[in-house]
């Protein structure tokens, strides 16, 4: 998937979506779809449901673009939230269908969190990423970035102090920067 639109600014992208929506959606797909797809897979784990969700997310992004509010964050962040929410909904509906025990909303949230803390190095794409990031740093970063946990939520979930979460997020970022320089 080649990136056609490398140097477009956030402002230009928003203006293109307004004035030339067909081109705007093309840019959103070229620039963000691979990343968002990987975020979705981190949550739902399987490729076929992930493709459905990616499709639904882009259609929703198209339909709701008028409600995007730039004072709340970047376009990517807005799209990230849409993808995460659809993925979590999918997980919950899947559990309801299976008829598993303990299916109050609270408990299914905890179930999501339990799935989130599994760390399977063999599922990771590039070896570099695993070698580059210490597991405990990566664990916190993934909870925050892929699953949308606040640092307070992550601290509660992993049962480690908030300060430790903050340090580990910070260190994950530093490691990331070295990897992607």
């Amino acid at each position, binding site marked *: *998937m080649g990136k056609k639109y490398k140097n477009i*600014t*956030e402002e230009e992208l928003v*203006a293109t*979506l*307004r*004035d030339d*929506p*067909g081109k705007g*959606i093309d840019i959103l*797909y070229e620039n*963000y*779809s*691979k*990343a*968002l*797809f*990987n*975020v979705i*897979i*981190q949550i739902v784990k399987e*490729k076929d449901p*992930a*493709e459905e969700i*990616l*499709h639904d997310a*882009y*259609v929703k992004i*198209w*339909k*709701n*673009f*008028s*409600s995007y*509010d*730039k*004072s*709340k*964050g*970047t376009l*990517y*962040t*807005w799209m*990230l*939230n849409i993808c995460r929410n659809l993925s979590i909904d999918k997980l919950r509906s899947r559990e309801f269908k299976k008829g598993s025990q303990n299916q109050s909303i609270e408990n299914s949230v905890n179930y999501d969190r339990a799935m989130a803390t599994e760390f399977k190095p063999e599922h990771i*794409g*590039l070896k*570099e*990423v695993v070698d580059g990031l210490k597991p405990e740093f990566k664990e916190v970063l993934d909870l*925050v*970035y892929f699953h*949308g*946990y*606040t*640092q307070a939520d992550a601290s509660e979930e992993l049962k480690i102090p908030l300060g430790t979460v903050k340090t580990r*997020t*910070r260190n994950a*970022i530093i490691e*990331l920067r070295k990897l*992607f320089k």
Partner: protein
Amino acid sequence: MTPNEIISSGKLELYVSGVLSDKEMYEISTLAENDTDLRNEITRVQDELIEYAESFGEEPSEDVRAAIMKDIPNNVIPFKLTTTNKGGGGTGVMKFMLAASMTAFIISTIGLFMLNAKVDKLADENAVLKERTTQTAQLTQAYQDKLDFMNHQSVKKIKLEGMPQSPGNYVMVYWSPVTHDVMMSSGNLPPLPADKQYQLWALHNGTPIDAGVFDAGNFLTLKKIEAAEAFAVTIEPKGGSKSPTMITMSAMGKI
């Protein structure tokens, strides 16, 4: 926090991940609008997080892209003859009127030639053609009326401009303080989800007065307005609201 403090605090990864409080998300977004360094740093962090996600290596199949494009409505707003028109109303109406006049002429010419051949069959066919001509003439008259109104000496043309959070929006309003008629063209406002509509408000002595609802791509006559100092557009549930939802204001203009 100052922009520099934010940059060195490591909060930007949390910002791009969307996990800060609403207040902090808003603060950083607002600061970024006026600070190039902060904006650039947000972009850098975002690009990094995007690369990180991509490094997991999964890619959606080409089918997904095709399915998305198929489910997204056509970029071009379909041209509805009676109530809608694209953008500012000028060239589109002229082109339509030209096409309408030419069509009417062609239809009449065909009718005349065919009359020379067989009368009975032609009588039927002629009736159909006459009906179409009448409809086209009515349509042309409707557009002529709209043009006449827009060009009337008493009519005020007001361009409503976008708000800071939606720059680049524009809507044209034509209002006659004499006859109280209001006509508007939706300019470049984007389409809304099915449960929402745009609503035009006239502002008089600080009070908003409902002027009617419309959709993206419309060129319509709305409700009569007796007095106004300004007009504004907001996004409301379908059918409109009694009072405007101020935070959704999409465009505004003073007379």
